[in-house]
């Protein structure tokens, strides 16, 4: 018996022999010889000192109070625990294996959000630590009904994820559906929660995000109370919120901190901004290529004048500048901050002035493209502005093909597509396809806050 256990320890040692940061120490204590295993990269010296060494030397019994014992046969589980930052203590005489959670990896402190910043309201954002993120939410919802289920995903990476929901509000069918999707995942590695999001979406081929993603604890808590399900992943800053609707992509949590008048105004701006950003340049193409007669004479004259030096058809002209803007945007976000600004200014001057003077572009188009580029940044979450960037090319090409007719056809496609999408089995276009008429109170116009006390139709909540 004793020998078997000794063999098990040898096996563990064998498994971890080529990992350099493993520490194996033998100590003589009151309870006989103890072998200690841990990964030094996952543990801070102070934690180890206070939780393991001091108790071992002074009162061995303290160790047994805070540790749990593990079956020696289960070598994979033991290795897994070591990997998770726990310390193994092997007591030789009674041949006992105990583990103590000593995990203390370096974490970032809580800072402001850069992607979803607001003027009013709390400024804290999630970090990359799962525990911190959950604690940020639990601080806002102090209710025992807030449950969190932990699972591991990724057959190679074994990353922890947490599913949070309000047990008394959430729709159980949605929850089961989500659990099923997560449990059926056979994906080897996850480095960010965005990968998980794409894998559990209803229609991964669509350009539209079907789950909401946020790094703001206040917005996530709000959705939780509304009956949504939230998923956190260790090492990812964002949280997935599902189900969600198309209209919620235009909702910022700041809308609820502003007065209803301001909030409604801003929300309308964002909503129509999305359609403007995908329609402005295609309109230019179709008006100039196919239907110059829709423009008033003076405007047409202006346009012709500014285009008189441009040798390309409007479609090529628009594609040219749109691609340049795309490049500028991408380069600006990749470059080191100090260089980025310079490039932005130079790019602006080169495109804004030089390209027009060189006769490559008309200056009216520059105004239009700049406006549409600005409008594409209006949606409060970045996912949608990426989508509008992509969708715009479909509109540009169809306007180049058939003018206004093509534009309307693309528009019809857009709506037909949105109408077919589901988020966790719930129609994506609520409340236009009405699931609940009261949702319109918090649609494009945000009604005064006292009318917003009902759960949204899309959550299909248990209680009203």
């Amino acid at each position, binding site marked *: 018996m004793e020998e078997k256990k000794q063999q098990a320890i040898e096996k563990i040692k064998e498994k971890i022999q080529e990992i350099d940061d493993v520490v194996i120490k033998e100590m003589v204590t009151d309870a006989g010889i103890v072998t200690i295993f841990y990964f030094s990269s996952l543990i801070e010296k102070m934690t180890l000192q206070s939780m393991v060494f001091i108790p071992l030397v002074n009162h061995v019994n303290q160790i047994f109070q805070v540790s749990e014992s593990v079956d020696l046969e289960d070598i994979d589980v033991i290795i897994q625990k070591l990997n998770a930052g726990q310390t193994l203590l092997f007591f030789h005489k009674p041949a006992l294996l105990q583990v103590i959670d000593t995990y203390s990896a370096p974490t970032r402190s809580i800072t402001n959000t850069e992607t979803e910043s607001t003027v009013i309201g709390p400024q804290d954002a999630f970090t990359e630590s799962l525990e911190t993120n959950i604690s940020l939410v639990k601080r806002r919802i102090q209710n025992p009904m807030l449950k969190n289920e932990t699972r591991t995903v990724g057959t190679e990476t074994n990353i922890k994820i947490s599913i949070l929901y309000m047990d008394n509000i959430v729709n159980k069918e949605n929850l089961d559906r989500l659990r099923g999707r997560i449990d059926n995942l056979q994906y080897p590695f996850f480095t960010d929660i965005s990968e998980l999001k794409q894998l559990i979406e209803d229609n991964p081929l669509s350009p539209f995000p079907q789950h909401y993603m946020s790094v703001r604890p206040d917005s996530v808590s709000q959705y939780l109370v509304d009956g949504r399900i939230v998923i956190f992943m260790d090492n990812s800053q964002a949280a997935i919120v599902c189900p969600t609707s198309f209209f919620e992509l235009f909702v910022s949590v700041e809308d609820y901190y502003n007065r209803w008048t301001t909030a409604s105004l801003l929300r309308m701006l964002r909503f129509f901004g999305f359609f403007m950003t995908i329609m402005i340049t295609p309109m230019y193409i179709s008006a100039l290529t196919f*239907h110059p007669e*829709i423009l008033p004479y003076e*405007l047409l004259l202006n346009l012709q004048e500014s285009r008189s030096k441009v040798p390309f058809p409007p479609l090529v002209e628009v594609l040219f500048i749109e691609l340049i803007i795309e490049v500028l945007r991408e380069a600006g976000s990749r470059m080191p901050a100090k260089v980025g600004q310079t490039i932005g200014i130079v790019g602006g001057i080169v495109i804004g002035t030089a390209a027009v003077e060189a006769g490559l572009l008309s200056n009216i188009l520059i105004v239009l493209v700049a406006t549409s580029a600005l409008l594409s940044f209006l949606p409060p979450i970045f996912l949608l502005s990426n989508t509008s960037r992509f969708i715009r090319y479909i509109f540009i090409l169809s306007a180049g*093909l*058939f003018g206004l*007719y093509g534009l*309307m056809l693309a528009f019809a496609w857009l709506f037909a597509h949105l109408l*077919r999408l589901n988020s966790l089995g719930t129609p994506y276009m609520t409340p236009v396809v009405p699931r609940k008429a009261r949702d319109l109170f918090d649609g494009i116009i945000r009604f005064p806050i006292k009318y917003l006390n009902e759960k949204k139709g899309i959550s299909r909540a248990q209680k009203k």
Partner: protein
Amino acid sequence: MSTDKSKRKLLNPYHVVFLAQSVMIGTGILSLPQQLSSLGYSQAFMPLLFGVIASVTLYPMIWINSKYPNENLFRINEILLGKWLGKFINLFFVIQFIIFIAGIISNYMHLIQSTALQEQTITGPVLCFLLLLVYIVSGGIKSIARFCILTFFLTIGMVYFTHWAFEKGDFSHFLPLYNFFSVHDFYEAIKRGYLSILGYELIMFYFPYIVDQKKAYRHTLIGIWISILICFITTAISVMYYSEWQLENVEFSVLNLFKAGEFSFIERIDIFGITLWVFLILSTVAAYLWCAKKGVDSLLSKKSNAYLYILAIIIFFVVKMPFSRDFQEKLFYGANYVAYMLILWPILLIMVYALRKKKQVQL
């Protein structure tokens, strides 16, 4: 079993309302004043009469469907008329649907070509249109119903464009009331104008999917009367705005109503109107195509998505067929008459049903 049943029942009341409503408004309304022109200025109230006729003819449809709550008209035909006769009639309907769809698309495309795309052939636009159509229809009847709802809210704003015509029009055109003389004119107007409000008869095909079948009559009626109201507004404003000669000779008079508009930044609202009209056409045609596909399913006793593509290809060839425009128009016009038959068809079915029932009782 219960899950199976709940999956079949897809259409909520608002879906039913707007399916009836949106399918009715197609290209018909654009030329409605011209179709009714035999009545001159008295035509303004015709749409209301159409509404009454539609409400009455809707009743037998719902009645025969409610006897077979889980079957569409294709199946009912087979049950009541026997397998072979039923299938023959179904084939007839499917062909009618195809030609009807092709007629609507062809009409619309000619309109597009004459207003918006003057320098192009219609092959490309028709192809793209059909692709989109197949995409919508492949989502099933619920997807079509949702599209209909959206279409209504996107296009209802166009009614606003008629207000200039309303301001410039003359109320005195309405008076005196009922100043037409011959019954023949009246008959002619019904014959030509009623086409514009066809579409509600499709309820016989999507009835099995309705959740609240007992109230289907009421919901469809709401849809019908929304459309009738829109038709009434447009004809009434046309009557106010145009002279009798214009009513008779301006082909797409409703489009010209838009032209009365004056904006400082847009010269021709009618082009916007006619291109936005693609939503209305899509919602109408999608419902018909869905029914045609169901028909093929029942003819071949097999379900497959491939039929949808085959139907779309057939429609493409009908629209692009190498015959004269004259022949095409005759064909499409003929299909319209068959559509009238479809409206009266349930009355015949009811008779057959009654006869069979009697027989069974005697036995």
